[in-house]
């Protein structure tokens, strides 16, 4: 694929085609070219988890993924894990528990937690803590985030 060729993949269930040079990371493609700004740029080095998206269902750091490598794959962002109307159970639980403070890290947490509950619908508290250990909340509101995910797991049953 030369730099003039189109990158094609499924984004939140819809096929997209977009020109993409080799050094573009998925985060920049999503935010700057496709205007999906729900995915946040935190550290840009893989430390904070704010940029988490799902690639073929796997939680993935979009700041450290070359966009070209999602060619032919399926990408879900925070915009896609939310239903067209309303909130998904993790989002609803975050609202109910006040599990956001400044809110910047929230999309990353919601994406990570959504992936956790898909693969493990009844996680223990320890499993939740471990699963979100790559997502940093600099307001340090972890307790409410953990409780919200526990609650979302109960609601989804």
């Amino acid at each position, binding site marked *: 694929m030369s730099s003039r060729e189109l990158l094609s993949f499924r984004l939140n269930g819809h096929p997209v085609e977009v020109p993409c*040079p*080799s*050094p*573009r*990371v998925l985060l920049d493609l999503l935010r700057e070219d496709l205007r999906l700004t729900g995915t946040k740029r935190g550290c*840009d*080095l*893989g*430390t904070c*988890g704010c940029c*988490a998206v799902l690639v073929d269902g*796997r*939680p*993935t*750091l979009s700041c*450290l*993924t*070359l966009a*070209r*490598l999602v060619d032919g794959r399926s990408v879900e962002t925070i915009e896609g894990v939310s239903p067209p109307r309303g909130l998904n159970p993790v989002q609803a639980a975050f609202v109910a528990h006040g599990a956001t403070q400044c809110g910047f890290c929230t999309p990353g947490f919601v994406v*990570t937690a959504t992936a956790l509950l898909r693969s493990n619908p009844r996680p223990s508290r320890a499993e939740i803590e*471990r*699963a979100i*250990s*790559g*997502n940093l909340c600099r307001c340090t509101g972890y307790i409410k985030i953990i409780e919200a995910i526990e609650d979302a797991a109960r609601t989804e049953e």
Partner: protein
Amino acid sequence: MHLDPFELHRPTTVDEVVRLATELAGRFDYLAGGTDLLPNYKMHLNAKPHLVALEDVRELRGHSDSRLGAMERLADLEADRTFGRTHPGLTDAIGEVATPLVRSSGTVGGNLLVDTRCFFFNQSYFWRSSLGFCLKADGDRCHVVPQAERCYATFSGDLAPALLVLDAEVEVAGPSGRRRLPLGALYDPGGDGIRRTRLAPGDLLVAVHLPPGPPGRRARYKKLRVRPSYDFPELGVAVAGAWDSERVRSLRLAVGGVETLPRRFDDLTDPLVGTPLTPEAVNRLADEVQRRVRPVHNTFLPPDYRRRMVGVYVRRAFAEAREGSAG
């Protein structure tokens, strides 16, 4: 942060990779999970004009009890509970690599060949240009050991010590075919700290092979890091072997995260075979390993503390070693 332009190659077979790697020798990096390479590229640390992405090469994937593909993702090993039960020490190490999000992309081969780290190297271009560049990137002197003609950056992979104590072998493909060598022989202590392996131009790490262990083997990997949910090791100690209070039947010990390369201490553990593993013997071993390691001041914690903690972690590794059918 932006990446400088490079040409991206996506080979699908090992032969194709070897051909590309031979042709591009010195002008490319392999891209495995990208979780360490791309942060370095974003900081303009030794970025190359070509990247050879390995993720479409099917042969590099997958794992069994005795073989780990070089491109097998750490998260996929972690999710395999049977593998976890049979390989307790290795599972300790896998589960302690960075964060779940990093392990979701990070690979076995990427961790074995991860670049070394140093406080004066893993910094932005601006930071490094202010102080003056170093041996490892763009410069000609070392800020840690000022008279040094070699690089002292620290080996920061967790899997290597855990695999060294299991007598793991690596399968390498190169221009003249395939070869297998002990993992320890992959690392070259004769290098300058920048060239650290015996991989030649055109070589590709294909897989790790785990030979069957002695019955009743126990293993443990213990890691010291500043933030337990994220950081690279300040030290990592691995032990594996079969022993009881009567007699040691086999024993290996390796340390990573303190020097340029991971190191196994066979000359200290071999004499213990056939003797009882008493608390005194463990203490003597821990003291001697601690005396020998040579950390320098290039990570967060001071070297003297790291050296003393090596002894503590050796004792803890023995105390917490667990049995698994394959070690």
